[in-house]
């Protein structure tokens, strides 16, 4: 938008500068036309003046040797003025043709002056004097004819030039009127265009803000251009984030309620269960109890023990233990936990169908709580092995993610996998696909990983297997647990 505004302003400036130059050029042209016209009229006046002066000299000549003859000095002055006028004509610019005519005129003027000089100075008999006077007069008349012809030609051209110049001035007038009227309209149109360009996306953003305020977190800002597009995209990201935070808060609230209920229930159930367990144990130790009944009692004791474990899980989930961070060699923790798990469950022997694949790449130590991580890994191993009742491959990989300060742990199996519709629910508490599962294992695992500032995700394909991916920061907890 900034670029567009700059471009728009530049365009606006260029348009108005060009218009300004055009106006100046037009005015200059019109002024030049007027100047030319004035000059042409001045030339016309000069020619008329010249003609008048010749006529005056002719009159002087005619009156010579009569009672009305003018003073010699006056005649000389008139003749000299006539010569000066024609000389003035040479000060102006002329076309070659015009210059030729002017030269002819000057030559004829010279001949006239010669003849006049002769008449003024000669002293001879009447016949000779009359002949000279007549010759001078005829030369003067020829000059007058020549000047008149010139005036006739130039008058016609002057008329054309005047009309042309006037037409040009008229055209200039209309152009200037047009520009004066068009200028504000163009300004208003450009202004409107800029204002619309600014206000329309602002209006869209304002509308989106209002919808967000009214709780419509699914509303998304439609695609906008330029910087407004970036603002819109940020707005949409904010909506998505807000929705996620709202979901987390909602879940946290749910979990708090469930946790409180579970804790209260566990606390209430724990003591009676302990009493039942002790009582049944005592009963099972009595000699009068038949051996087959003792077996039943032992099963009761086993179920009570399982219930105690379940109660413990509830409490752990509801009131999670605080993490004690220390430098941890993650590969070592994983290896130890896996070995322990395999031994404890007698997995990996010669006759086992479950294959174990370890791929531990070199990773730096991280800040973590070892026991909590062991709990998470054990849970994942357990789920993996249980997902492969017919055997398969349990693979554990670690690596340092390129370009980030995180380590990645992948635990995958080649088991039955999770159906697509259920994949999003596996981390929800009390969700389980097992007959005897509590639905808290993965929920607690995610809780612990998030306590470490990490993330846990799952990918699965039904019938092909499941892969859990944990990402943990090298430097320790990055964010508060959800």
């Amino acid at each position, binding site marked *: 938008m900034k670029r567009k505004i700059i471009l728009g302003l530049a365009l606006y400036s260029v348009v108005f500068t060009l218009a300004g130059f055009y106006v100046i050029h037009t005015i200059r042209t019109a002024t030049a036309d007027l100047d030319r016209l004035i000059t042409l009229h001045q030339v016309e006046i000069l020619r008329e003046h010249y003609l008048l002066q010749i006529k005056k000299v002719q009159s002087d000549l005619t009156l010579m040797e009569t009672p009305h003859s003018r003073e010699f000095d006056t005649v000389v002055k008139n003749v000299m003025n006539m010569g000066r006028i024609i000389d003035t004509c040479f000060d102006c610019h002329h076309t070659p043709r015009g210059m030729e005519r002017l030269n002819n005129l000057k030559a004829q003027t010279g001949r006239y*002056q010669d003849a006049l000089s002769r008449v003024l100075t000669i*002293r001879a008999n009447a016949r000779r004097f009359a002949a000279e006077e007549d010759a001078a007069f005829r030369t003067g008349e020829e000059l007058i004819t020549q000047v008149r012809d010139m005036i006739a030609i130039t008058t016609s051209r002057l008329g054309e030039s005047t009309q042309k110049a006037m037409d040009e001035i008229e055209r200039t007038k209309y152009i200037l009127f047009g520009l004066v009227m068009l200028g504000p309209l163009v300004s208003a149109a450009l202004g409107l265009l800029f204002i619309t360009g600014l206000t329309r996306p602002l209006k869209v953003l304002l509308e989106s803000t209002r919808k967000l305020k009214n709780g419509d977190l699914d509303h998304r800002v439609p695609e906008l251009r330029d910087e407004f597009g970036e603002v819109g995209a940020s707005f949409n990201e904010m909506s998505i984030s807000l929705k996620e935070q709202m979901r987390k808060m909602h879940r946290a609230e749910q979990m708090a309620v469930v946790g409180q209920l579970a804790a209260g229930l566990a606390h209430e159930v724990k003591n009676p269960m302990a009493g039942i367990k002790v009582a049944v144990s005592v009963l099972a130790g009595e000699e009068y109890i038949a051996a087959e009944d003792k077996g039943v009692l032992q099963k009761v004791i086993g179920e009570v023990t399982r219930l105690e474990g379940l109660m413990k899980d509830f409490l752990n989930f509801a009131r999670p233990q605080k993490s004690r961070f220390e430098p941890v060699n993650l590969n070592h923790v994983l290896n130890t936990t896996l070995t322990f798990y395999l031994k404890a469950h007698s997995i990996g022997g010669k006759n086992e169908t479950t294959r174990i694949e370890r791929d531990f790449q070199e990773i730096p130590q991280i800040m973590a709580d070892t026991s909590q991580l062991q709990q998470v890994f054990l849970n994942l191993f357990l789920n993996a092995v249980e997902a492969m009742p017919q055997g398969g491959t349990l693979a554990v990989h670690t690596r340092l993610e390129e370009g980030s300060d995180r380590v990645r742990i992948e635990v995958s199996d080649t088991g039955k996998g999770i159906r697509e519709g259920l994949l999003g629910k596996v981390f929800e508490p009390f969700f389980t696909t097992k007959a005897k599962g509590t639905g808290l294992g993965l929920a607690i695992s995610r809780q612990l990983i998030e306590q470490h500032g990490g993330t846990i995700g799952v990918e699965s394909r039904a019938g092909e297997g499941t892969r859990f991916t944990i990402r943990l920061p090298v430097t320790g907890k990055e964010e508060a647990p959800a």
Partner: protein
Amino acid sequence: MLVIGLIPEQNIFKQLERYEPLARYVAGKTGTKIELKLLPRYGNIIDNFQSSGLDGAFFGSFTYSLAHAKLGVEVLARPMSLDNTSTYHGLIFVRKDSGIRNARGMKGKRFAFVDKATTAGYLLPLGYFHDNGIPDYKTYLKETYFAGTHEDVVYDVLNRKADVGAAKNTVYQRLAKADPRIPGELVVLTRSPDVPENGLAFRKDIDPSLRSRVRDALLSMDRDPDGKKVLEQFGAKRFIETTNADYAVVLKYVEDLHLNLANYDYKND
């Protein structure tokens, strides 16, 4: 202000144009306004000197001699031409095809003088007729007239308006340079002795300091860049100091013709 008269040596308007730059230059150097006054005839300068309020004039050699004798004017300077001469002489010429080769051939012909107050244009032919035993040219010739300028005399003979003409050599030669018909078609029969070129003379009661300033301005023109340009335009190399002694040759000529300057009738008939 100084009023300076000009005699019609050539086309009077060209004459005026020729002298105007010189007048402007001298006016600038002396701080005195100068007005040029054109005179239609040589003799007018004698008549009009006082009535027209002239302070000075560029006189021809004979006109100066007359004016000095009648009015007491005093010469101070005259131009030296580009070929280093400060004198001129008169010529009598005819068309080559006229068949006229001497005074006898002129009998019954038309003669064009310049003015009665000119050395070249009148005194020379007067002396010529005198020397050839023709006491009255008016009866000897068919027609005589005064063309008024040396230039007109040359062209009148060239254009067959007159059969014989008399004019000064400087004008004749200047015209001959511009018009090849003149050397090609005209032939000079005789010439007069050299006389001083037209010089500037002032009335006798002129302010001596003004006279001195004008003289200095004229005599130093050739050493001043602006003055040089004006001289070039005027057609002269420089101005030289001139005194009455320079006109002795004219006076001798007048004496030989038995003319009396004091009562000489300079008016053209």
